């Protein structure tokens, strides 16, 4: 095999892996929107909280325990926010929830800045995950491969929960016809709380995983949120597999652009989004959306 081809295959593999990071954030964004109709602009801020939590909890709890506690804590925070705030906006004008979540994201970012300072906090990969896997010409850090498995497990778990459990059936029914679900005597409130906890918890998990790689600083949420939105829009609102495919596509396109023409690596996401929206306005696998039509 010519070396250039191996390089390209390696970049594609790397892109797929990057896709999983986007997926963790985009998935939560997508399910919260699907069920509640809320575009959560504070999603990136919860990702940042996840990263700050692992940095601070690692000192006292150790990395392993902090790794479990941090995303769960972010999920619980998400449930509290749902219970006291999001709930007020389900049947309201979408502009109101947009304004609220935008304000919430700014409050969280500035609070992080006030408490921890604007400087990036140092946080390293745990000792046991140092090192690289080398197979022939292929090479990759162990930590990132570990991240890949955690991300796959989280995404698979979410899929199973939404598709193979009674809870998932209520969620799906709630997306299609919330009034009918209520008429049948099932309260959607606890379901919404759980879905927000899950979606926001996934963002927290992404923050925990990426903290040692991209640095922990107050604006980190904003940086990742735009990419996550691009993934959701490309994938099609409300489609689980659409978001999965879009995340992989965005990862690979960004990876290859970084290789062949780095200045356009960030812009490539938006060009891809533009292309898809022109050719297929509902996104790759998006369904027709009653809520929007």
């Amino acid at each position: 095999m010519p070396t250039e081809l191996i390089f390209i295959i390696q970049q594609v593999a790397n892109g797929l892996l990057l896709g999983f990071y986007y997926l963790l954030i985009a998935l939560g964004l997508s399910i919260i929107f699907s069920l509640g109709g809320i575009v959560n602009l504070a999603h990136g801020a919860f990702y940042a909280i996840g990263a700050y939590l692992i940095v601070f909890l690692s000192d006292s709890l150790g990395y392993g325990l902090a790794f479990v506690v941090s995303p769960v804590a972010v999920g619980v925070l998400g449930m509290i926010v749902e219970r006291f705030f999001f709930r007020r906006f389900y049947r309201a004008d979408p502009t109101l929830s947009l304004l609220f979540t935008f304000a919430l994201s700014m409050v969280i970012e500035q609070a992080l800045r006030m408490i921890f300072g604007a400087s990036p906090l140092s946080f390293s990969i745990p000792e046991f995950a140092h090192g690289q896997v080398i197979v022939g010409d292929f090479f990759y850090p162990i930590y990132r491969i570990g991240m890949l498995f955690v991300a796959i497990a989280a995404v698979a778990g979410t899929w199973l929960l939404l598709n193979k459990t009674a809870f998932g059936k209520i969620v799906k029914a709630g997306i299609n016809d919330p009034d009918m679900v209520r008429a049948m005597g099932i309260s959607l409130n606890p379901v919404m709380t759980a879905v927000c906890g899950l979606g926001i918890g996934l963002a927290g998990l992404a923050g925990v995983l990426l903290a040692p790689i991209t640095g922990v600083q107050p604006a980190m949420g904003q940086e990742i949120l735009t990419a996550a939105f691009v993934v959701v829009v490309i994938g099609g609102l409300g489609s689980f597999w659409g978001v999965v495919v879009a995340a992989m596509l965005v990862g690979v396109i960004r990876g290859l652009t970084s290789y062949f023409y780095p200045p356009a690596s960030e812009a490539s996401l938006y060009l891809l989004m533009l292309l898809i929206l022109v050719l297929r306005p509902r996104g790759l696998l998006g369904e027709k959306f009653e809520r929007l039509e």
Partner: protein
Amino acid sequence: MSDSKTSASFPRRRLLLQGSAALAAGLAMPGLVRAQGAGPLRIGHLTPRTGFLGPMGEYAVLGATMAVEEVNAAGGVLGRKIELLTEDSVNPQTASTKAQRMVERDKVDALVGEISSASGLAIAQVATRAKTLFMQTGCNSDELRGKNCSRYMFHLEACNTMYVRTIGQALLRDGMVKGKKWMAFTADYAFGHDLFKQTKKFMDENGAVFVSNDMLPTDATEFSASLLKIRQQKPDLVMSNLAGNQTTNFTKQYNEFNIDIPFAGADMNMTSIWGAGKNGFSGVWPIIWTHQVQAPSAQDFVARFRKRWNKTPENQAVNDYLAIKILAEAMGKTKSADVDKIIAYLEGDNKFDVLRERQGYFRPWDHQLVYEMYTVQPGDDKKAGKDDFMVTSKPVPGAGENLEALAPTQEENMCKFA
């Protein structure tokens, strides 16, 4: 705000009282009287507090604030206290508007600060039009001292050429330049482009073999594609011309990918090194100052800063601190806040304690403050504390050498004051 809340919180009430007192004083005292020198001397401080330069801006404010406190504790200048007005400069447009407002409405006696070269240029234009002094503390672009130089702007920050020559000397000494293949990674905006230009000039002049330069967007945080590319190309040296948080993340990930190719760069700040952490910091870098500088005045400053802010000072804090200290000294010595007298003093044959071994001075023809610089790299001491896992070199230029050896000559970077 409800009444119960205000009365419940004493500090807030005191603030309110002080606020109204200040307001009343302001109303009672016409601007004319203030301009003649009865009120405090006002210094407008503008620096980015948010965005990828925000971390440095935070230290800039701490340094400036501490300098004002020290000057005021020693009785102020010309019998007047210094009042610091500090604001987030955000971007060139906002920086320009805020500078304008500080000059016209707040009647500041001088402007201090900035980190972004683009915003620095915008502030310099306002300062020049208004004939107000601007002590810039963080803008690296050579053009600010050359093509865009101004009689009213003084440069506490080193220029890109000074950074490149500092790291260049270290690389030459280690045999890392002549005949070596090098790859560059550059921040895709004015500062990065200028730094790359200076780096390439230096490497070309000294016989290095250029492989490639990748321009990386300033909002990129994840560099695995670039790092895989480095492993594929196998150069002899990788040079970073990145900026702000980019540097932190690139350095960390370079370590994570365990690339055993020598890594160096042309710009570094201590916030980036601390951000990368003990296990993430790699490479050899030029820096204008660190808390490890052994000069007595430097160590004394470190102790005072730690006592005041409960954290270790970094390079940006020093520039903003020095700007205000030097300004106060110039006003004191000339017994005047008159801009022409201060410029004459700064351009004159006067040396300043710049918290280093040797004293520094402004070059009269481009207003660059020349001083000793350093290189910094990871240390061997595994037990070093969280602030001290790096080591700082001896001063560059060395003890016997000309202090201006790093800065561009008049031929290299022509400046004509209008």
